[in-house]
């Protein structure tokens, strides 16, 4: 169960002038190491086709696999070269720029321990951090945060996990308090109404009281950072409709998360989720649906970089998905649910410009169950490496509380600059 924040007193709430919440006024304590890391996890729901994001254009078997429907080094829309063997989807120029600037890393042929092909179980394993689905209602990111040593790299005020969107992703649920933020689309309620309702909840419904307290704290940060967008805009808070709307939603949500993380008194660890990667029909790798979505994702990465400002150099963004897709195209120029895929890392704190892959090959005999890219990197090694080196997570807690039964998946060293 999430811990309780310091409940704001009536007096604090009535102080007004932007200082709505007691801890918004607490002076920032400088940490010994002088680092103030930011960590943002973006869950790509639906199963992202890793071979459509980063393709092994130097692999002689690659061209045969998907023929003209695949990324290629040559042609009218050539992929963006990375290291001579792999190339990036041309819809992602920002990620390419960051890669060239050593601020992006690509992990390929990676997978969670999950080996079936259900989205929902796959997401469960990806986000819970457990080896099997259906076993937890908390996520690895939240448990990692909760397990951090007091006085460590992450400031006490950064001990809230942060989520953007009307439904909080599992990865960020858990014992550490979660602040969830939806850009306001309605005129905000008065402080007086909020305070009275909070009083009612404290006497009648502790769960509701906790949620409302968190909202009050968040409103204080948002006010301080000037993040309350104009109310009255009735755009739906969830994505849907045309690609322009998706682009806007991706950039808005990611940018909002970055703005909160950049705030001196803001949270330090955040998560959000983007849907829409389940490309069963007319995948459109180079031109079409997936190219559009990857373009929107690239825009979101750019929005994070911009919104982070100075904090970008202390930032790691990790983009992960529940599984990859079939290596070959299915009967409808799409792909069905598969296994290994890419994980994308971006941020100024990375030692980037690298591709981390033990390439399994794409010959028939090299494929997992003769259909999917074979997993050769356990995604947990990457996540554990980042949590240890970036947030200063204790190695023992990574093997027990954060990723139970993962001792074989050693934290990957040297991901950070």
């Amino acid at each position: 169960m999430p811990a309780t924040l310091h409940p704001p007193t009536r007096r604090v709430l009535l102080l007004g002038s932007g200082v709505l919440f007691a801890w918004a006024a607490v002076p920032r304590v400088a940490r010994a190491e002088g680092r103030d890391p930011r960590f943002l996890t973006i869950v790509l729901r639906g199963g992202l086709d890793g071979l459509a994001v980063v393709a092994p254009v130097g692999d002689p078997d690659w061209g045969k696999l998907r023929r003209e429907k695949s990324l290629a080094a040559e042609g009218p829309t050539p992929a963006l070269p990375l290291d001579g063997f792999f190339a990036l989807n041309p819809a992602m120029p920002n990620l390419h720029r960051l890669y060239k600037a050593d601020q992006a890393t690509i992990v390929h042929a990676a997978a969670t321990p999950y080996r079936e092909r259900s989205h929902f179980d796959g997401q469960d394993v990806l986000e819970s951090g457990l080896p099997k689905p259906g076993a937890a209602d908390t996520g690895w990111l939240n448990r990692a945060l909760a397990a951090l040593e007091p006085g460590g790299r992450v400031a006490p005020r950064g001990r809230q996990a942060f989520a953007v969107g009307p439904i909080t992703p599992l990865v960020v649920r858990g014992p550490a308090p979660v602040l969830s933020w939806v850009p306001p689309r309605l005129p905000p309620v008065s402080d007086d109404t909020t305070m009275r309702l909070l009083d009612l909840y404290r006497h009648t419904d502790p769960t509701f009281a906790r949620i409302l307290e968190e909202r009050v704290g968040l409103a204080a940060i948002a006010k301080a950072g000037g993040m309350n967008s104009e109310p009255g805009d009735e755009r739906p808070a969830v994505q849907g409709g045309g690609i322009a709307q998706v682009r806007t939603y991706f950039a808005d949500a990611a940018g909002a998360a970055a703005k909160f993380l950049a705030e001196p008194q803001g949270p330090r660890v955040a998560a959000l989720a983007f849907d829409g990667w389940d490309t069963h029909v007319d995948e459109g790798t180079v031109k079409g649906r997936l190219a559009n979505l990857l373009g929107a994702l690239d825009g979101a990465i750019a929005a994070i970089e911009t919104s982070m400002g100075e904090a970008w150099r202390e930032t790691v963004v990790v983009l992960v998905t529940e599984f990859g897709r079939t290596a070959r195209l299915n009967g409808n120029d799409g792909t069905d649910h598969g296994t290994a895929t890419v994980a994308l890392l971006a941020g100024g704190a990375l030692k980037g410009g690298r591709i981390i892959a033990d390439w399994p090959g794409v010959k028939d005999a090299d494929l997992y169950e003769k259909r999917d890219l074979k997993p050769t990197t356990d995604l947990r090694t990457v996540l554990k490496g980042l949590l240890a080196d970036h947030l200063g997570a204790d190695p023992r807690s990574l093997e027990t509380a954060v990723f139970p039964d993962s001792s074989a998946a050693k934290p990957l060293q040297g991901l950070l600059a």
Partner: protein
Amino acid sequence: MARDPRAAALVLHRFGFGPRTGSIAAIAADPPAVLLAELDKPDAGQITKPDLPTSAAVNRAVFEYQAERNAKQKLARKEAEQLAMANPGKESATQAAAAEPPAKPEEVPLPRQLFLNEARTRIDAALNAEIGFVERLVWFWSNHFCVNQDKTVMAGGYEREAIRPHVLGRFSDMLLAAEGHPAMLFYLDNAQSIGPNSVAGVNRDKGLNENLAREILELHTLGVRTVYTQADVTNFAKVLTGWTILPTATNPDQGGEFVYLKRAHEPGPQTVVGKDYDDTGIEQGRAVLADLARHPMTAKHIATKLARHFIADDPPPPLVDRLTQSFLNTDGDLKELTKALIAAPEAWAPDQAKIKRPGEWIVAALRATGLSGDIGRIVGGMALLGEPLWRPPAPKGFSDDNAAWLDGLAQRLDAANTFAQRVGEKLDAEAVADTALGPLALAETRRAIASAESKPQALTFVLMAPEFQRR
């Protein structure tokens, strides 16, 4: 049985859409009997509005609308280009013409209007019911067999045609109606799946799409991690090839309707979940669905989901067992299953363990205040609160766990406040509390309402009270 207003209020919130004026008193004489009686009403759960178009007609109308709009835009662009060529100095002419909106801003586009008509019909059915139990069942099953309006344009018609006729009928019939409906075949890509060895597959070098087959096994029937394998998914996908839709572009009268296309059906027998099925054409798929509908794992899956929706996130195992048995003993008779649910003592626990989903809460607020609401605002509110009507984020549908909705409480407060600012001056919040909460109202809630600084604030407290948010 003695009058029991408390049980009456609980029934209205837990199994219905919340009380309207006088509801609690009206059913207090025997709440369980009134609940049961709703199931026995003739045409329970059906929509009898002859002016609503069928889903196939909607599909055709939206297709024609979009084709015409595209043509108009293309013509406008052409004219602008010609104009620009004639006047090479005025570069902005092309841009100005291209930027011109295709329709007058106040005109609601046809697809949106058709959607709003369906939405209004659905909301009205919930507003006008005495308790709303059957409507809640419709919402539950529609979410179990969900499709997405953005992809299919016919989610409303689908619900009326495939879900409503069977909410008190047999599960096997609903399963067949849902999986064979054009909206589902389109949503989960089966319309385009072609047997690799079928005539169409060989001629056009096309093949399977396993999306629908997988989700039927995982989400609609057996449940994930049960008794099926990747081979079962692939074989079932082969069985379902040929289940497709008549193309709208070339069939102005029947486009968008279901058709079995033998030419696209994978020939030969298939094994699915341990049983062999001869190639009997469309009957092969029907036979697999009929067996899946009767499978014990399906019974357990459905029983768990139903109990989770109405009773608790983690429903008591004895309750799930009883519901499973009812499903198996009655060959998936959903009316009997529903009766077994309300016959269970667990269904009458005094704790309001579940949080209303956003749509349920919005309807309850309208019922409590006696308003019918603007349909654009209603669907806008559902979207803002994370439950956009007929637009689930994934084939699993919207979550039935409290945790998924708890974080939206602050957004509900903004929505309640906006609603109360608009209508609260004209309403007596204490009377609304009597209507909506009755004996469930806590003393603290009553005090907060009585001491509110304004009428809208008092109404906000009624709608945000834990007794009203929970069910």
